[in-house]
């Protein structure tokens, strides 16, 4: 996106966005993998961002966007361009964004613990920390993530953040982080 286009897309001061706020924008990327990479980069640099669901007018499938403070847009754009993951678009928030899941369901099976985040479930053997099952989800990286993670310990297993590509992968990352807190 050109800088000119970027400024043209900027919201007028005082125009209400999400929750009545005019100070938030969203970054739209080519795919969820890029969203996850950008989130890693921006959080590492301690930017105040949130991964959210896109507004209906730009939903195309398995989507995520990054909500960010508009005031920081140039700095963030420079950071992402340096990393080779510039967003397709950076636009002001004009309608409420969908909130990703932030609730976990935990089920204790005695020797095993299962954590559910959204549509994904991760089960671990308590004594060893070995991931014994991954279930739920419908995107094609779920079987891949299960193949790569099941049978490995929480320490040795690759994180879904590193090898996942979709919203299901992102949900599994949340379950992975929660089960690490629990074990």
């Amino acid at each position, binding site marked *: 996106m050109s800088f000119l286009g970027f400024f043209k897309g900027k919201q007028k001061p005082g125009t209400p966005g999400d929750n009545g706020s005019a100070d938030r924008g969203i970054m739209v990327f080519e795919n969820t993998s890029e969203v996850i990479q950008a989130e890693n980069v921006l959080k590492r640099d301690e930017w105040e961002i949130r991964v959210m*669901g896109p507004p209906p007018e730009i939903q195309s499938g*398995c989507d995520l966007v990054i909500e960010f403070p508009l005031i920081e847009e140039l700095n963030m754009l420079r950071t992402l361009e340096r990393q080779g993951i510039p967003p397709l678009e950076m636009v002001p928030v004009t309608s409420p964004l969908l909130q990703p899941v932030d609730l976990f369901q935990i089920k204790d099976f005695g020797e095993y613990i299962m954590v559910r985040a959204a549509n994904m*479930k991760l089960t671990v053997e308590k004594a060893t920390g070995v991931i*014994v099952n991954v279930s739920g989800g419908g995107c094609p990286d779920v079987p891949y993530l299960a193949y790569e993670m099941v049978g490995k310990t929480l320490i040795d297993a690759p994180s879904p953040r590193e090898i996942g590509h979709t919203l299901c992968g992102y949900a599994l990352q949340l379950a992975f982080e929660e089960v690490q807190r629990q074990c």
Partner: protein
Amino acid sequence: MLAIAGTVPSEGFPLLDGEITLADDHIRICDERISVNRGTPALMAAAIKTADVLGQPAPFGYLVGDIGQGKGSRRLYKYLTGHLPQSNFQTLTFHYLQPIVHWHKRLQQVIYEIKERPVLIADAGFMYVAKMSGQAPMYDLFTPDIGELAFLADEKAPHPFYTRGFIQHDENRVPDLIAHAYDHNNAARFLLVKGKQDYLASREGILETIDSPMEEALEAMGGTGDTLTGIVSALIDSGMAHSEAAVVAMKANRLAGHYAKPTPATQIMEVIHRIPKALLEVLEKRG
């Protein structure tokens, strides 16, 4: 004949179509083989076992490698739009494909134009995209779990990942969620809802509930929904009425799970091995 379209978790797996068989816990298609772990291979394995019990021909498969980047899925969508018009399948089951709205729309246009429209079944990513596209009513059967049912019930959610309608997966809400999904035209003609209890529903409401045998550990096991979809697909393709096939499938899948004596660490192939015994038992009791 039943055709099943989906992906396998191997980036280099080529796009293949052909008869599928099960040997040594692997799905074989053309000269390739892939282990049955979960996902579409598990659905295919369950359908093969079911077809075998019923004396039906082995299903036809459309498979491609995709690890979540969507490249394989896009190739398969494109391939299907070119090949389905020449097909004469009685039943089409779509499974783990990347949800891509514009490709779904193109594929649906092709299916609309098939002279004798096949029975359409969708699960996993393809069920997500069918709902996202606003095309759910053209399908005959969806097989969601309760979380996915909440997604179908939420007219604004583009994916089960989002919170709205997803606060709690409370089984008591199932009738409301089903009604909501139908109110917003986000459900197939029949819904087979997988969970602690399994439900068969239509626009008229819940038609049947199956809650035994109960194996708590199955909730943790990846692939139990895939096997259910595979069993019901093969039953419907054999000519059994949709509602009857759904009830038989729910019972047989639960029974196969029970016979596997599962723990949360049990893998899905243990259930698949027991499908023939369970299915024969359910079919005999049905008379």
